C-alpha cells in the first residue's frame, strides 16, 4: 500500500520513506504539556498496529516517562532508551511487546536519568535503525522546547502536532511549528474538544484554532472522562474500534496511512461534521 501511494503522489507524507523502503518516523509534539501527546501516541500506534502495520513507540521523555503507563506496560519495563543508546543492552532486549496489539512494541524512556544524557547523533542513528525494522516509528515528544524536544525531533522526518482548543495551547503549538521549520510539514490533531462548550462560545472552535495554526487537520478528538480512566488503567481507547473515540483514532490512523477518510465523528453535531468535512482531504483551511 505504501508503494502505491508513493507513485500516485510524491508529496504525500511518507512517500519518500516508502520509496526508500523505510518505515516512517513521526514525532508527536505540541510545546504545551498536558494536551495529550502521550495518549495520542499510544492510541495512534495501537490503531496502526491493529491494521497490521509493524509499529514501535519511542518514549523520548527521559526522566518523566509515561508512555509505559498509558499502555499498561510499566511492570514490564526492564531496559530503556538510554541503555540502548549507550549500547549496554541490545534493542531487542529493551523493546517491550504490547499487551494488546501483536505488532506493537514500546521502547521506554529512562526514569531516573536526565534528558541531557541523550546524544543527538546517536538518537538519529537509533531512529534510523528502527525505521529499517518497523513500518512506523512514533516518537512521543516531551513538553517544552528544550533539549528533550530537540532530541525527539532529531530522528523524525514527519511531525504531528497535538493541540487543545485553548488560547495558551494554540500559542505554544504555533511556536513549535515555527521551530520545526521547513523540514517538516506538520499535521494537526485537535484534542479534548467539547462541542457543547464551543456552541456556548466558551471554547475555541476547530476553525478558531486553525485560523492561527493553518495546518492540515488529521482529526479531532472530543473530550470524555473515559480517556482518563483508560489511561489510568493502561488500556488505550483505540482498542475499542466501535466507540466514538476509538473510531476517531482509527480514522486518523487511516489518514496517516494515506487513505482519504471522511470525518467519522457521530458524537459531534451535524453542522460541526460539515465544517470538518470541508477541511478534510488534506486541504488547507
Amino acid at each position, binding site marked *: 500500500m505504501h508503494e502505491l501511494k508513493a507513485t500516485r503522489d510524491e508529496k504525500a507524507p511518507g512517500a519518500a520513506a516508502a520509496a526508500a523502503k523505510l518505515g516512517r518516523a513521526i514525532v508527536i509534539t505540541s510545546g504545551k504539556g498536558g494536551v495529550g501527546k502521550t495518549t495520542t501516541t499510544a492510541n495512534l500506534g495501537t490503531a496502526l498496529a491493529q491494521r497490521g502495520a509493524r509499529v514501535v513507540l519511542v518514549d523520548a521523555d527521559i526522566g518523566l516517562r509515561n508512555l509505559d503507563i498509558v499502555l499498561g506496560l510499566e511492570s514490564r519495563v526492564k531496559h530503556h532508551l538510554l541503555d540502548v543508546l549507550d549500547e549496554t543492552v541490545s534493542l531487542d532486549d529493551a523493546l517491550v511487546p504490547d499487551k494488546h496489539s501483536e505488532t506493537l512494541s514500546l521502547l521506554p524512556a529512562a526514569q531516573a536519568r536526565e534528558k541531557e544524557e541523550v546524544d543527538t547523533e546517536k538518537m538519529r542513528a537509533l531512529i534510523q535503525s528502527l525505521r529499517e525494522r518497523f513500518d512506523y516509528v512514533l516518537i512521543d515528544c516531551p513538553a517544552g522546547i528544550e533539549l528533550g524536544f530537540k532530541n525527539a525531533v532529531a530522528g523524525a522526518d514527519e511531525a504531528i502536532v497535538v493541540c487543545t482548543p485553548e488560547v495558551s495551547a494554540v*500559542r*505554544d503549538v*504555533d*511556536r513549535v*511549528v*515555527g*521551530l520545526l521549520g521547513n523540514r517538516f510539514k506538520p499535521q494537526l490533531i485537535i484534542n479534548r474538544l467539547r462541542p457543547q462548550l464551543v456552541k456556548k462560545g466558551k471554547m475555541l472552535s476547530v476553525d478558531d484554532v486553525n485560523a*492561527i495554526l*493553518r495546518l492540515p487537520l488529521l482529526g479531532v478528538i472530543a473530550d470524555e472522562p473515559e480517556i482518563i480512566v483508560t489511561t489510568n488503567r493502561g488500556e488505550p481507547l483505540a482498542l475499542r474500534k466501535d466507540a466514538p473515540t476509538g473510531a476517531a483514532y482509527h480514522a486518523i490512523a487511516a489518514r496517516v496511512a494515506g487513505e482519504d477518510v471522511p470525518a467519522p465523528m457521530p458524537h459531534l453535531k451535524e453542522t460541526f461534521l460539515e465544517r470538518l468535512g470541508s477541511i478534510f482531504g488534506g486541504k488547507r483551511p
Partner: protein
Amino acid sequence: MNGASQSHPQRYSEKDVTLLRGRRKGLEVALAGRELGQAFDELEARLGERPGFYRGTSAVATFGTTHASVPDLSRLRGILASAGIELRAVSGSVEVGEAARACELAFETPAGPSDEHELERRRALRPRRGVKLSDAARSLVADFAGARADIADRRRRGEASVPRTDPSIEPAPPDAALAGEFAPALHLVEAPPSTLYHAGTLRGGQALHYDGNVVLVGDVNPGAELIATGDVLVFGRLAGVAHAGAQGDERARVYALDLDATQLRIATFIAADGENRPARTNAARPEAALVRDGAIVVVAFDQLGALERGASLS
C-alpha cells in the same frame, strides 16, 4: 509629558466620521445615501462600544433623499433609546416626513447645501476634543509612558534594537535634522533604505528584525515580532507585535490587510487596542498605523489620502 504616549490607536474611517456627528444641540445621525439596514447595524455596534457615553443626549436623524419607512424609524428610535439617546426629530424627503408623523416624531426640513458646507467648515475649525479614557486605558498609558521614555533614552545612548549597517555612523539625536551639524541618522542617508521581502507566516516566538522596510506576505501570529527601522507592511493578518521606525523615524508606518496587533510601536510610541474592543467582523479592511499629533492612529487605507490632504480626524 502629556500626549507622550497614546495608549489606544484611534480608528477612523469614512463611515465613522459621517454616521454619528456632533451638532450644536445634541447629535446627528447621518443616513443620507446609506443602506439603512447596514447603517443601523453599524450604529448599534458603535453605540455598544461606549455604553452610557451618550446617555441623556438627543439626536436628529437626517435621511437626505434616502427613503425611510415607519419600521425603519421605529428601529432607529429603539437603537438610540438603548444607548440613552432620545430621537428628537428626523429630516428628509416628504415620505420620510409622513413616516415621521406616523411615529409621532418631529420633522425638520433638510439642511440645504450651504448648511452642509457651513457644518464642514466649522468642524474643521473645531479643536480636537480630548479622548475620554477608561481606567484600564489610563493604566495602560501610565505603563507605556515609562517604557517610551526608556526606549528614547536607549536610542539616544546609541543602543538600537536593530543592528546598524555602518557602525561608524553615530545615531543622531532627535533634533539633528534641525541642528544640521551631526552625522545624519540612517534615514537621512542618500541611499534609500532597502526593503526585505519575506513570503511566509511568522509564527509565535519568531522574530524578524530588519534595517530597512519589511514587506511580509503572510501572517504575523500572536507572539511573533516584526521590527524594522523603516516601514512595515503585512500582506496578511498582523496579530503579533510590529515596530516600525525602530531607530526613531516617527514618519514610519505599519500597514496590514488585517491589523489586529497585540501591540503597535512606531519610533518611541506604543499603542495597544482598548480592552473592550467589539468583536471583529470577518471582513477585515486594510489599515495603516502612523503617528499623528503625538499619538499612534489607525486609519483605513482608503482614508489615508484624505488624511494626508489635511482632513480633520474628528
